[in-house]
C-alpha cells in the first residue's frame, strides 16, 4: 500500500504546516496566569477604524484589569459570516464575549446560546431583538448623535431648507436610531423640511446615485446627513457629480481617517464622532464586573462630538478614530 503511505505523508506535511502556524499564533496568547480572565471581542466587520478604535479601548482597559483579549471579525458586516465566528468563539470558551451583532434577528439565537453556555455576553454598538440575556448593552446615544447632526447642519445653513438622510439598511438598530434622532430634531424646527430617509445598502456608489437623483428632484437641498462611513463617502461623490459642491452641506457620522480627510478637503462639512474607545472600555468593565459577581448596568449610552474643520486639530483631536492601537 505504497499510495496510502504517501497519502499519509502528505497529510502529515499539512498537519505540520497547520501545527506550526497554530503554534506561532497561540504563543503570544499563552503564558498568562490561569486566573486571568479571557475576553473575546467579535467585531461587526474586521479592518474598520470604528471597531479598531473600540478594540484599542478594550485592550487598554483589559490590560489595566488584568484580562486577556482576542479579537475576531467577519470580512463583511454580514450575519451569515459572523455566525460561524461566534459559534467558534463560544467553543473556545472565553469568560466573556464583547460582540457587535450584525443583525437584530440572525444573531439572537447564537448569542443566546453563548449566554446559555455560561459566557457573559456584552453587546457593544449594535444589539439584538431581545437582549435580555446580555449582562450589558453599550452603545453610542445614536438618537443624540442624529440630533447633533441636525444641530451641525443648522449651524452650517442657518436659514433652513430641505434636508435628507442617507442611511445604510433598515433594521440596523444604530443607524435607524441616528436617522430617527435627526428626523425628530428636524421636525421641531419649522424652517427645515425633512425629505425622508434613503438607503444605500452600505455601498458608496449606491449612496452617490441616491444623492444625484435627490438633487435632480430637489435642487435646493441644503443639508444631507449620511449615517455612516460609506454613505458619507457616496453622498460627497454624488454632490460632486451634480456640481453642487459648497451648496449642499454633508454631515457624516464617524471619524475615521477617510472621513477626516473628507472634512479637511471640504467635501464634508461636519462629522459626528462616536466614542468607540469608551464603548470598548466600558464593555470590559461591565464584563469583569459580571464575572466578579458584581452588579452591572443593563444599558450604557456614550456621547458624541461634533468635529468641524475648525476644531479637528484642536479640541476634537482625540475624537478622531485610530487605524491601529
Amino acid at each position, binding site marked *: *500500500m*505504497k*499510495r*496510502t503511505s*504517501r*497519502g*499519509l505523508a*502528505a*497529510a*502529515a506535511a*499539512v*498537519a505540520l504546516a*497547520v*501545527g506550526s*502556524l*497554530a*503554534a506561532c*499564533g*497561540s504563543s503570544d*496568547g499563552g503564558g498568562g496566569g490561569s486566573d486571568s480572565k479571557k475576553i473575546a471581542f467579535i467585531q461587526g466587520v*474586521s479592518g474598520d477604524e470604528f471597531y479598531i478604535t473600540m478594540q484599542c479601548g478594550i485592550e487598554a482597559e483589559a490590560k489595566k484589569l488584568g484580562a486577556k483579549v*482576542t479579537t*475576531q*471579525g467577519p470580512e*463583511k*458586516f*454580514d*450575519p*451569515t*459570516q459572523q*455566525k*460561524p*465566528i461566534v*459559534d*467558534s*468563539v*463560544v*467553543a*473556545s*470558551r472565553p469568560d466573556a464575549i464583547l460582540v457587535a451583532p450584525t*443583525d*437584530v*434577528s*440572525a444573531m*439572537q*439565537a447564537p448569542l443566546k446560546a453563548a449566554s446559555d453556555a455560561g459566557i457573559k455576553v456584552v453587546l457593544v454598538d449594535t444589539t439584538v431583538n431581545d437582549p435580555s440575556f446580555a449582562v450589558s448593552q453599550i452603545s453610542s446615544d445614536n438618537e443624540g448623535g442624529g440630533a447633533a447632526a441636525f444641530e451641525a447642519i443648522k449651524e452650517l445653513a442657518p436659514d433652513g431648507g430641505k434636508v435628507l438622510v442617507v442611511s445604510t*439598511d*433598515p*433594521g440596523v438598530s444604530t443607524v435607524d436610531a441616528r436617522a430617527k434622532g435627526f428626523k425628530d430634531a428636524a421636525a421641531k424646527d419649522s424652517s427645515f423640511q425633512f425629505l425622508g430617509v434613503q*438607503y444605500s*445598502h*452600505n455601498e458608496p456608489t449606491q449612496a452617490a446615485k441616491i444623492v444625484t437623483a435627490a438633487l435632480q428632484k430637489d435642487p435646493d437641498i441644503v443639508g444631507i446627513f449620511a449615517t455612516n462611513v460609506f454613505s458619507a463617502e457616496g453622498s460627497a461623490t454624488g454632490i460632486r457629480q451634480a456640481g453642487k459642491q459648497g451648496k449642499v452641506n454633508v454631515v457624516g457620522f464617524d471619524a475615521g481617517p477617510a472621513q477626516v480627510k473628507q472634512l479637511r478637503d471640504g467635501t464634508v462639512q461636519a462629522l459626528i464622532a462616536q466614542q468607540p474607545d469608551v464603548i470598548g472600555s466600558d464593555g470590559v468593565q461591565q464584563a469583569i464586573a459580571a464575572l466578579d459577581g458584581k452588579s452591572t448596568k443593563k444599558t450604557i449610552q456614550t456621547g458624541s462630538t461634533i468635529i468641524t474643520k475648525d476644531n479637528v486639530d484642536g479640541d476634537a483631536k482625540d475624537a478622531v478614530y485610530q487605524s491601529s492601537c
Partner: protein
Amino acid sequence: MSVQAPPTSITTRIVRVQAFQILLVLIAIWVVFAILEGDRFATVGNMRLVAQNAAILAILGVGMTFVIITAGIDLSIGSVMVFSGVIGAKVMVAQGGDGWGTAWLGIAASVAAGLAWGLVNGVLVAKAKIPPLIVTLGTLGMALGLAQIITKGVDIREVPLVMQSKIGYGNAFGDVPMLAGIALVFLVVGGVVLHLTRFGRHTYAIGSNEEAARRVGLKVDRHLIAVYAISGGLAGVAGILSLAQFATTAIAGQSQTNLNVIAAVVIGGTSLFGGVGTIFGTVVGLFIPAVLQNGFIIVGIQPFWQQVAVGAVLIVAVYVDQLRRAAAQRGGRTNVLSRLRGRESTSNEE
C-alpha cells in the same frame, strides 16, 4: 487503462481517489487542532456547530458537483438562494401564522423559485448554447436584482417560529442539528443518484465528452437542463433553510457563496473539465475551510490565515487534477503523488 491490468481491490481503488487523499488532509488538520486545543475543539458541541454551519453549503455543493461534472459551472447559486428565500418569506408573510402550514407553503415557494432559475440556466446553456459561465453570471445579477426589487432592499425578518425552532436550531435523531440531518439526506440521495443510477452515469458521460454522448444517443440537452434545474432547486432549498437559520433574508450576504461552494467541489477532486467527481469529495472539500476557520478561531489565530490556507489547498487540488489529466491523456494511469515527486507512473507499478 488496459484490459490486462490486474483487478484492483476496492481498498486500492478508494485510496487512489483524490477525495480520499483530501480526506487524509482533513483528518490531519483535525488532529492538529485536537492536539492543540482538544478540550475546546474536539468536543461534540463544537462539531455540532461546525456541521450546522456547513450544512447549507453542503446542499448547494450537491447541485454544484453535478453541474461541474458536466464540465459546466453555476455562479448563480448564491443569488438564487437569496431570491428563493425572499420568495419564501414573502409567501409566508402573506399567509401569516407561525405554524407548519405556513412553513410548508414557504418551503414549496422557495424551492419552486430556485427550480425556475435553474431551468432558465439550463435552457440557456443547453439550447441557446451560451457558455455556462456567462449564463450563470447573468442570472447571478438578475436573481439578486429581482430579490432587491421585490423587497426594496429591505430584509424580511418575519419567519414562522416553527421554522426557526424546529429547522434552524432544532435537532434530528437526538443531538444532530436538524440542518445537518437535512443536508445528510440530500448528500446521500445526491450520491446515490450520481454514482448508482443511469442519470448519474449519463452525467459523467456528458462531462467526459459531450459530442460522444450525443452520438451514442443520449439526450444531452434535456440532461443538461435537468442538471442545472437540480442545482437551482437545491439553491431554493438552501434559501429556505438559510431563512430558518438566520431569521432574515440576508440579501447582502451570500455574495461569496458560489465561489466557496465551487472551491469545495474542486478541492474534493471534481474536475473543472468535467467527467470526474464525487459527492463525498465535495463534503470533505467543504469541511476543510469550515474546520480551518473554526480551529483557527479557537486557537486564536487571525482568521485571515484561513483564506490563505484554503486558497493554497484549492490550487494544489487543481494542480493534482491537471497532472492526472495529463497522465490519462498519455494512456498511463494516474499516480499523482509520484508525479509530484517527478517520477513517471505506470499502470503496473504495483
